[in-house]
């Protein structure tokens, strides 16, 4: 039985989600069709929209379904800036997901002013630094709510409050926060928020962008009236209803799941620190942090070798950033936190999910110290 501790990459599909998805795979389901088949699809689509909206305290009409969080982030950045005019610029942080950071750089290459705010050694971005980076041309600030690599939680609400009267759209990528911490768009005070289904136990290939009523956004995909003209193309109904179920489950279970994941992550870290006294936990020591994420460096060990040995021992974890081939590259997050290239390659990320058990954690505690000794000492006797 394998142990899966890579929930920040993707989570297993929840059985309840699977059942609902399967139900909608087969019968014709185009929500724009006038017949009964279309009406059934429309009803399911709108139910899912309400479930996803409820996860973040939003109105259903403000949810735009997309092909995933990458598209949602692209729509947020490109769409908001296009609507704000050709000279509109943006501000982001150095530890964003590639779908934000690379898109921001692409927009900068097209001539838009871009400021990338640095983070401290724990991966925390300071609200005052973000606010100070907002210039006269800035029309968008995008800040990931929780960092998927080291778990740092950004002061998004503080930034949004400070910018309320500044004619700046505030976007947050909440992909890693969803299902792990309470989400409320009113409390956050943001204008745009991205979500992904598959991090919640929904299907891959589905996401959403929440767009506060009144926020101007130019669509990226055109050619149909779907999603209130914000995202053309026949909806992925089966995927979206799966997203709806995953969102409902995540909302209902949040308090318990977050507490359980937090307790297990701390048990894991406490146990590892006792067995590997020189291990370093990357990320915030005290500040707000995702309850499920443990990123550690073990001196003298490449994270990649530990990842492979854990995989061979039946435990799936990950190392920072991976290229398309799965090779570990120096993590841009750890680099931004001031680690050198070698250390930035060494971070081992264990991310727990709602189904992670104490038995799983204890198995890691049993196995990992021996693997560390092997990597440090060479071939096992």
């Amino acid at each position, binding site marked *: 039985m394998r142990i899966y501790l890579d929930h920040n990459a993707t989570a297993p599909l929840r059985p309840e989600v699977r059942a609902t998805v399967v139900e909608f795979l087969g019968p014709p389901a185009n929500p724009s069709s006038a017949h009964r088949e279309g009406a059934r699809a429309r009803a399911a689509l709108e139910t899912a929209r309400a479930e996803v909206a409820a996860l973040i305290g939003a109105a259903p009409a403000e949810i735009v379904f997309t092909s995933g969080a990458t598209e949602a982030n692209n729509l947020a950045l490109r769409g908001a800036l296009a609507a704000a005019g050709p000279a509109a610029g943006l501000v982001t942080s150095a530890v964003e997901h590639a779908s934000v950071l690379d898109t921001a750089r692409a927009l900068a290459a097209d001539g838009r002013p871009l400021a990338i705010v640095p983070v401290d050694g724990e991966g925390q971005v300071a609200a005052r630094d973000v606010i100070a980076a907002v210039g006269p041309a800035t029309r968008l600030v995008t800040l990931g709510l929780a960092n998927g690599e080291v778990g740092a939680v950004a002061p998004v609400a503080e930034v949004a409050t400070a910018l309320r009267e500044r004619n700046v759209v505030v976007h947050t990528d909440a992909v890693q926060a969803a299902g792990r911490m309470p989400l409320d768009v009113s409390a956050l005070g943001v204008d745009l928020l991205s979500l992904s289904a598959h991090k919640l136990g929904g299907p891959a290939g589905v996401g959403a962008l929440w767009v506060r009523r009144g926020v101007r956004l130019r669509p990226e995909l055109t050619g149909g009236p779907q999603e209130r003209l914000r995202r053309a193309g026949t909806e992925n109904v089966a995927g979206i209803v799966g997203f709806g179920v995953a969102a409902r489950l995540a909302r209902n279970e949040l308090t318990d799941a977050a507490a359980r994941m937090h307790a297990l992550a701390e048990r894991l870290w406490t146990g590892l620190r006792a067995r590997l006294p020189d291990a370093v936990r990357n990320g915030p020591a005290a500040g707000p942090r995702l309850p499920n994420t443990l990123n550690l460096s073990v001196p003298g060990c*490449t994270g990649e070798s530990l990842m492979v040995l854990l995989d061979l021992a039946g435990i799936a974890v990950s190392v920072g950033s991976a*290229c*398309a*081939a799965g*090779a*570990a590259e120096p993590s841009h997050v750890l680099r931004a936190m001031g680690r050198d290239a070698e250390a930035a390659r060494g971070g081992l990320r264990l991310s727990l999910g709602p189904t992670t058990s104490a038995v799983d954690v204890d198995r890691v505690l049993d196995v990992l110290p021996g693997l560390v000794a092997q990597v440090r000492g*060479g071939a096992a006797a």
Partner: protein
Amino acid sequence: MKRERIVAAMSGGVDSAVAAARCVAAGYDVIGISLRLLRATDGHCCSLDDFHDARAVADRLGFPHYVFDMTEPFERHVMQPFVAEYLAGRTPNPCARCNEHVKFGLLWERARELGATRLATGHYARIGVDPASGAPSLRTARDPAKDQTYFLFMLGRRQLERTLFPVGELTKGEVRAEAAALGLPVADKAESMEVCFVADGDTAGFVERHAPSAALRAGPIVDDRGRELGRHGGVHRFTVGQRRGLGLGGGERRYVTGLDATTGTVRVAAGEGPAPHGLVARGVSWAAGVPPASGASFAVRIRHRHPPIPARLAAVRDDAVQVEFTAGGSVVTPGQAAVFYRDDLVLGGGWIESAVTGTA
């Protein structure tokens, strides 16, 4: 009983696939590793298709496969020296450098961390064992047309002890047949001949993109009497022995006899002038740990795919040697390897520093 773990280096090609398959058949606990050596921006695609091929082979044979990123060390140990060598008027041998530093250096370190006792590759070479001492020795492949010992000469005894060349006893045809019999998806895959990081074989263009612009300078092409015959765009565009593409128009057949990077001069000679009758090599390592006696006879290979030529050891000083060809002259290209053979045994090798011309 716990099986011996080995790491199989997998390029995505048929040779390393069959090497890995042979390790599986031999009962080893195999981990396949592919190395990412190039960034996506280096012209190629970063070899994603090759990784997929390697993984498909691993899936088919039922062993785990991973890709390790070694772009930074590859750049440092192979690509940067490659550019520097061309700028210095030499013709580098990047495959040998990659074997030395990356595959049998850093990859072996990783293999050791993973608990492997040996590293298997798809190179065409054999490892013999001295019946008296038990010491391993590097020997040429059974298929002389495919032999790759020219790129492996620097492997020492301790490296050979932890290395497997499972296809060294096979011909290329046999390798393909074995791959086909196992249903490996790479059985008919075309071979890569070019330097892996130089897209479309445009070496000069690669050097120009990666060199500091101040290092690229035009200069004269002069003949053996010092007459300027024309101009050129940089010594990195030439290789000693080159006959084509000299840009001198028609007339006499000429070839490059020397490159002087300090003055930016390309020297050429007409027709079939007297070829060098020896070479000086540096950074020489010997399989036996010590050089053979001065005057010893062997054969020296000075280019991949060229047959070794008869020679004798004329002089040794530290890690430098002077070698004399005993059966006629040959074009000698600084920067290439000189590898010494006695029959199928690799005695050692080093890096060609210069040709020896004129009377000794």
